[in-house]
């Protein structure tokens, strides 16, 4: 039967049909739906949210070494975290099939960088395949496990946002259990223990495997040649192929489904069959560099195709047609319109916390999560975002560099999921190395930004089973933060939060501040609205002076209404604010900001 499926769902389906029994992941856009889909639909597969991508790959590879078919999935930057495992798994190989899905995000829709994961395949000396739509996500996933077992190697499956998050028709089939018997063989230590004496022969095995994979690349149906025009041909993969095929159906194509190693003979053959060959690829000139190194004369590549952001049908058409491209008529200049950036939800506990940090004038070493939105004006209270866990390490480094001058001036903030992902070690380091940093864990009881995935601090597994819940305070104590320096704050109480943060920032020792009772507004099971005394607040226009102070918290429920007027006691104003009753949840943050007591409780 044909079904419409998201690329990520098709990967889950393919994995299930391929007989996968273990799947692990850490959420990251655009890959998060893969594991969720596995957990929701395929009970035969053990599924888990791991604390980070490295652990996910460790779990999946352990399962594979035990003979199971297993997978780990992550976003592109997650591969950086997992890469230490990958680079050596390439040497050891596996037993049951192992697929690692890495989802790139060209145009950085929701990421901190735009790296091209194809480079991992070349760097790590492992095969990589790249589907171009949901049907291929499904088929290539099944192929990944066959390749993995045939060549005794982890296989990377790369997607991009427009494949992972695009839906199209998939012809599905039945699940086939793996025929490989489960079990561990202690005699295989020379294969799995990577001490130098064992590494050297495995190093050679890697090269021999790459040669076999090169020969395979020339035969596999994952690579397809479509000869139309004898004059112009295009070499492309994944989304870029789909865009190019859309715009230039009359050209010949070499569609690379296996993007590493490359099919050298097939490429040479394509150059013989077609006069002018263009290489059209998103991000890096990965194919182009290799194809030029093979000695082929590339007609066009990155000289006309951008090496950053996403490609699209019009970008390709414009690049190829050059001056003869006719742009559609511009009726309205989109740059003149107000933008609509994402914002923290009404009632979100991050809003008062960052308002407090701003009032304290703190330099905030940030991290990755919803709270990164605090960088946006008018809150503008987050000053670095590098990678998961970075803030805790950076604040320590900055304080060491600046010495006494730094005390009381800076903090690190990160989410609960991020803390468990990579925030514990930087804090342990600060406590150990006599650091004076303050780390605030914005504990909203869930992985928020990526759409509510469970983690070791939520008390539930991916399938909703009750699970162990880590105790952040005990972690802090165990890694060396003094009990007196571990404090709780209620972010909705701005004044008290400021006092506690200020005290800890000024201490000559490492501190850990935990936000308490501040679950994500969208996390229904935590009943986030219950703590608010009143369901709604309104502006008393008799008192509102139009000072705009409450706009500084950037609450989506609050807006400015222009119009001269005055308060009841005769203070003139240029306008007043309005609280949208459909959006207000009664968090009282604006009430604390207003100096004129003009915001009052009301009934819904």
């Amino acid at each position, binding site marked *: 039967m044909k079904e419409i499926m998201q690329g990520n769902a098709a990967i889950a389906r393919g994995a299930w049909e391929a007989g996968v029994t273990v799947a692990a992941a850490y959420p990251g856009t655009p890959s998060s739906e893969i594991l969720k889909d596995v957990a929701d639909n395929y009970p035969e597969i053990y599924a888990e949210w791991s604390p980070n991508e490295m652990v996910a790959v460790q779990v999946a590879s352990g399962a594979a070494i035990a003979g199971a078919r297993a997978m780990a999935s992550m976003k592109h930057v997650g591969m950086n975290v997992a890469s230490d495992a990958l680079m050596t798994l390439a040497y050891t190989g596996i037993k049951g099939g192992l697929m690692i899905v890495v989802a790139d995000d060209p145009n950085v829709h929701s990421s901190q960088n735009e790296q091209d994961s194809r480079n991992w395949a070349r760097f790590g000396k492992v095969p990589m395949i790249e589907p171009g739509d949901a049907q291929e996500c499904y088929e290539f996933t099944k192929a990944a496990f066959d390749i993995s077992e045939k060549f005794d190697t982890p296989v990377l499956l790369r997607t991009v946002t427009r494949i992972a998050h695009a839906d199209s028709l998939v012809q599905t089939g039945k699940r086939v259990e793996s025929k490989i018997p489960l079990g561990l063989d202690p005699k295989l230590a020379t294969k799995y223990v990577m001490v130098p004496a064992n590494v050297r022969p495995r190093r050679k095995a890697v090269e021999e495997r790459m040669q076999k994979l090169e020969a395979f690349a020339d035969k596999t149906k994952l690579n397809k040649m479509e000869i139309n025009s004898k004059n112009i041909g295009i070499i492309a993969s994944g989304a870029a192929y789909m865009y190019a095929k*859309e715009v230039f159906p009359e050209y010949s194509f070499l569609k690379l489904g296996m993007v590493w190693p490359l099919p050298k003979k097939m490429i040479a053959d394509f150059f013989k069959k077609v006069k002018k060959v263009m290489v059209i690829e998103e991000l890096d000139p990965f194919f182009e560099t290799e194809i030029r190194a093979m000695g082929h004369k590339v007609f066009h590549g990155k000289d006309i195709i951008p090496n950053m952001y996403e490609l699209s049908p019009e970008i390709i058409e414009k690049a190829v047609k050059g001056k003869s491209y006719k742009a559609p008529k511009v009726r309205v200049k989109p740059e003149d319109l107000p933008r609509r950036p994402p914002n923290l939800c009404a009632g979100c506990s991050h809003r008062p916390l960052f308002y407090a940090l701003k009032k304290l004038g703190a330099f905030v070493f940030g991290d990755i999560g919803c709270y990164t939105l605090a960088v946006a004006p008018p809150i503008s209270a987050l000053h670095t975002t590098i990678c998961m866990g970075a803030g805790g390490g950076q604040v320590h480094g900055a304080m060491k560099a600046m010495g006494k001058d730094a005390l009381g001036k800076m903090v690190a903030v990160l989410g609960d999921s991020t803390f468990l992902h990579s925030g514990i070690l930087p804090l342990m380091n600060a406590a150990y190395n006599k650091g004076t940093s303050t780390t605030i864990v914005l504990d909203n009881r869930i992985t928020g930004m990526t759409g509510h995935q469970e983690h070791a601090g939520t008390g539930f597994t991916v399938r909703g089973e009750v699970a162990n819940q880590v105790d952040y305070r005990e972690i802090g104590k165990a890694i060396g933060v003094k009990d007196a320096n571990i404090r709780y704050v209620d972010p909705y109480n701005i004044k008290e939060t400021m006092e506690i943060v200020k005290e800890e920032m000024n201490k000559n020792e490492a501190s850990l501040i935990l936000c308490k009772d501040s679950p994500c507004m969208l996390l229904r099971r935590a009943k986030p609205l219950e703590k608010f005394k009143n369901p709604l607040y309104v502006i008393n226009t008799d008192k509102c002076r139009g000072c705009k102070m409450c706009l500084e918290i950037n609450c989506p429920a609050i807006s*400015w209404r222009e119009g001269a007027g005055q308060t009841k006691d005769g203070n003139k104003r240029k306008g007043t604010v309005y609280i949208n009753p459909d959006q207000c949840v009664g968090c009282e943050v604006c009430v604390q900001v207003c100096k004129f007591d003009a915001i009052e409780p009301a009934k819904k």
Partner: protein
Amino acid sequence: MKKDEKTTNIFLSGVGGQGAILASNILGEVFIRAGYDVKKAEVHGMAQRGGDVTTHFRYGKKVYSPIIKYGDVDFLLSFELLEALRYINWVKPEGKIVINTQEILPPSVSLGQMQYPQGVPEVFKKHFKGNVHVVDGLGIAKELGNLQAQNVVLVGAFSNFFPKIKESFFIDAIKKLLAPKLHDLNIKAFQAGKKAL
């Protein structure tokens, strides 16, 4: 290329939380039932946090790109006035349009730094004349007693552009994608939207 092999492009735009994703899922089920190849693409990311949401929806005999080429939109379904205007250049000169009258203020407007664009339907009518249809989706949903049904009201209005597609496909899609307790409400919402054009 024969005419019936041509791929048709539908663009949906709105704001996170308006239900544009469900609307595009309904269209997906509908056009599969009608025997077409379908591809659609949306950016999820941070849409839940009030950002703009767009879906590229394409159907035809064989669809390659999940993304519509800029300027090639045959049908625009917009859930919000500003988000309609933002994509006006994407629509072909002969394109057909349904615009919902809801306004959701972006931060720069809430803060009093920018003006919300005025007269959006008129701008569309200037360029697309009689092919522009303005629908008060929220008003119709309110009459039905559930604001959340706005998205299906708009799908109902939009369905008028596809007279060859059986109405039962839309009803089946609604039934497949929504919980049984929501079927009656949303079928009514679809019908009400259909009559609104």
